[in-house]
């Protein structure tokens, strides 16, 4: 029906859109506690994600291979659109500067036991030396943003200039195992 024309197709698109909005609102709601988003902003984001997902789905109908339910395949587009929009939204209300460094956050982030402070301070000093001496400037910037400052990767890839090897939406972080195509 979606591949057809006329009123039947329009009705099918309307039903699909309604479903996508429901999924988008659910996903935005699920992520909302970790974001500085509330009320109308959440709904806006959900509607935008659903609309863009609908365009992507109708443009790629020929790629659906029947290896899952159609709805599962369609939901995936919504989830990806919500991710992308949340990533862009981060930079409208950032909590941190991209280049600020706070190595003191690492013990909490890795759950280091205060009773073993001497040991993990040595470990962190070695890690910091490795980051300063072994990584390229770009890798270091990415490490600082993601590991020290907690910038979401989806947000970071929007902010950094593209590289020749960034053939997927998230592959620019040392230690993040993303094999390029």
């Amino acid at each position, binding site marked *: 029906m979606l591949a057809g024309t006329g009123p039947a197709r329009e009705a099918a698109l309307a039903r699909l859109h309604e*479903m996508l909005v429901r*999924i988008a609102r*659910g*996903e935005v709601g*699920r*992520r909302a506690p970790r974001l500085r988003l509330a009320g109308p902003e959440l709904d806006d984001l959900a509607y935008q994600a659903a609309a863009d997902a609908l365009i992507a789905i109708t443009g790629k109908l020929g790629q659906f291979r029947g*290896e*899952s*339910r159609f*709805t*599962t*395949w369609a*939901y*995936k587009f*919504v*989830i*990806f659109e*919500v*991710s992308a929009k949340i990533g862009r939204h981060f930079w409208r209300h950032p909590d941190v500067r991209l280049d600020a460094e706070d190595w003191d956050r690492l*013990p909490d982030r*890795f*759950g*280091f*036991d205060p009773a*073993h402070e001497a*040991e*993990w301070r040595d*470990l962190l000093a070695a*890690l910091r030396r490795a980051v300063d001496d072994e990584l390229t400037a770009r890798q270091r910037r990415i490490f600082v943003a993601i*590991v020290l400052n907690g910038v*979401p*990767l*989806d947000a970071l890839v929007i902010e950094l200039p593209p590289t020749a090897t960034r*053939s*997927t*939406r*998230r*592959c620019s972080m040392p*230690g*993040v*195992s*993303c*094999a*390029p*195509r």
Partner: protein
Amino acid sequence: MDGRPELDRFLRTDPRDVGCAQAMDILHIYAELASAGGPVEEQYPGIAAHLRACGPCGEDFDGLLAALRDQGPCGP
């Protein structure tokens, strides 16, 4: 020492990891199988390795699972 396993896990790459592109390509298949209680780790070890390692892909997987769960076993 507390935290060392987490740091070690963060710094290592699982050689089976298939990467974002492949994971995103079949995330719907993986999620549907996972939601039905199927043997996803066995059938798709490379995807499983990637979802453990990649925060954004893992988050998307969690979102898709949640959507499938909310829609019920047979979907709309």
